[in-house]
């Protein structure tokens, strides 16, 4: 366990930024936190709850996969990938760290997504224990520990100090670089901090939300539940939930004709969209009800079925706060699972 005074945090950032791109949650003009690349003058936000999730760093909303060029009747294929640079994401919440595992299970299992894998390899995740959760938070529901988040490095922040613990070799290497600013310490303060966090977690309005009703093998139980009709009735189909979600990983691959060639790019897609997985015969999810159902069934039933019972929701609460009409996974779980919370 290492510690460092918060007064020196900017020096720590400077040190990290010397060898890698550093991203930290910083305050945006409207007061909400967003990930910004650190440079002198960018302050670490007191909030860890960023509007967009750190999923962007590994699965950017849009990326060019390759290019084609035609010359006369010939076609030339260009791999325009450039070497991913080292980068560090600092101050990741426990839930968001967990989301990378959800993504890994999709993109790193065979066939491995090399675009994703190279970023995953180059990125170092520094998590921070979440001492100020929002009322929308329910990570505990999914067995996540905000007291001691995962990641290459785990940090705890108190009033005046920050504590570091490396979990991986990548993390150890990073802490090695910071040795000039840190000193060894025992775990007393951190243990205290963990207890504080546990106490706050116990006060959260959604603390009693349970997943017992869900999991693999429940497809038939829920699929034809008439409640989907009612729940989806208010859904606008906008896709905001999927775009702020740290675990939503659907994407579309499209071609863009620049006039000088074709760029094949990948961009996020959303199961909320009417064009989602459209095939030659049309669409197999024809109304918003099916599309709505898909999203939640995927998070709560289909994904666990294929991933050893792991849910693909981490309880980060983003969709709760950003849905234009406040329809969200919590309301769905309560209604569908008839879970009393």
């Amino acid at each position, binding site marked *: 366990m290492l510690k460092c005074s918060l007064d020196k945090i900017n020096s720590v950032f400077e040190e990290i930024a010397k060898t890698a791109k550093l991203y930290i949650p910083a305050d945006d003009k409207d007061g909400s936190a967003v990930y910004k690349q650190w440079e002198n003058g960018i302050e670490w936000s007191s909030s860890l709850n960023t509007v967009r999730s750190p999923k962007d760093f590994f699965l950017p909303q849009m990326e060019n996969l390759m290019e084609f060029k035609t010359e006369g009747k010939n076609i030339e294929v260009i791999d325009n990938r450039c070497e991913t640079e080292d980068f560090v994401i600092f101050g990741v919440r426990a839930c968001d760290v967990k989301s990378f595992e959800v993504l890994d299970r999709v993109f790193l299992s065979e066939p491995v997504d090399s675009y994703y894998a190279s970023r995953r390899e180059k990125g170092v995740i520094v998590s921070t224990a979440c001492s100020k959760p929002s009322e929308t938070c329910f990570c505990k529901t999914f067995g996540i520990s905000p007291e001691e988040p995962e990641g290459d490095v785990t940090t705890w922040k108190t009033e005046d100090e920050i504590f570091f613990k490396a979990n991986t070799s990548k993390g150890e290497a990073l802490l090695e670089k910071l040795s000039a600013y840190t000193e060894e310490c025992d775990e007393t303060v951190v243990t205290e901090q963990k207890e504080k966090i546990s106490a706050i977690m116990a006060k959260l309005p959604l603390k009693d939300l349970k997943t017992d009703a869900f999991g693999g093998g429940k497809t038939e139980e829920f699929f034809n539940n008439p409640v989907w009709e009612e729940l989806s009735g208010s859904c606008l189909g906008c896709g905001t939930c999927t775009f702020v979600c740290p675990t939503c990983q659907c994407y579309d691959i499209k071609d*863009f004709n*620049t*006039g*000088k060639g074709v*760029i094949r790019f990948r961009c996020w897609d959303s199961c909320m969209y009417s064009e989602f997985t459209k095939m030659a015969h049309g669409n197999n999810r024809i109304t918003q009800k099916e599309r709505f159902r898909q999203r939640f069934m995927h998070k709560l039933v289909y994904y666990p079925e294929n991933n050893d019972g792991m849910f693909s929701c981490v309880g980060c609460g983003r969709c709760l706060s950003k849905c234009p009409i406040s329809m969200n996974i919590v309301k769905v779980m309560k209604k569908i699972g008839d879970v009393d919370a």
Partner: protein
Amino acid sequence: MQVNEHKPLIVAFCCNWCSYAGADLAGNNRLNYPADVKIIRVPCSCRVNPMFVLRAFQRGADGVIICGCHPGDCHYTSGNYYTRRRMAALFSMLDFLGIERERTRLEWVSAAEGAKFAATMNDFVEKVTALGENKRLEDLRCKR
């Protein structure tokens, strides 16, 4: 006189009945204007969708000019009146977003105004050249 290396790309939408004929007349009279101007024939200036204007900018145009019959002379009686409202609104919006207002223009050129067509194009090209490359409404993917 400042020498500007940048050769602008100008897309001109011309209505079939007046302005396209005006451009033909400019040709008949051998009135020169820069080759940077490329004309697209539309039946009426009211066929020009704001999306076409933006599309041209996206693909690398530095200026877009729409030419139609003089108000009151529209072959379809009222098409250019709609164009006038649509483009007034669109150009004002582009200006609001900080896009240089000289990059867009709406001009009335009759079939008899070959000289006006050439003069308008000369003037427009000169103004757009002075602005340089279109940076504010560009799509980098379409640039070389």
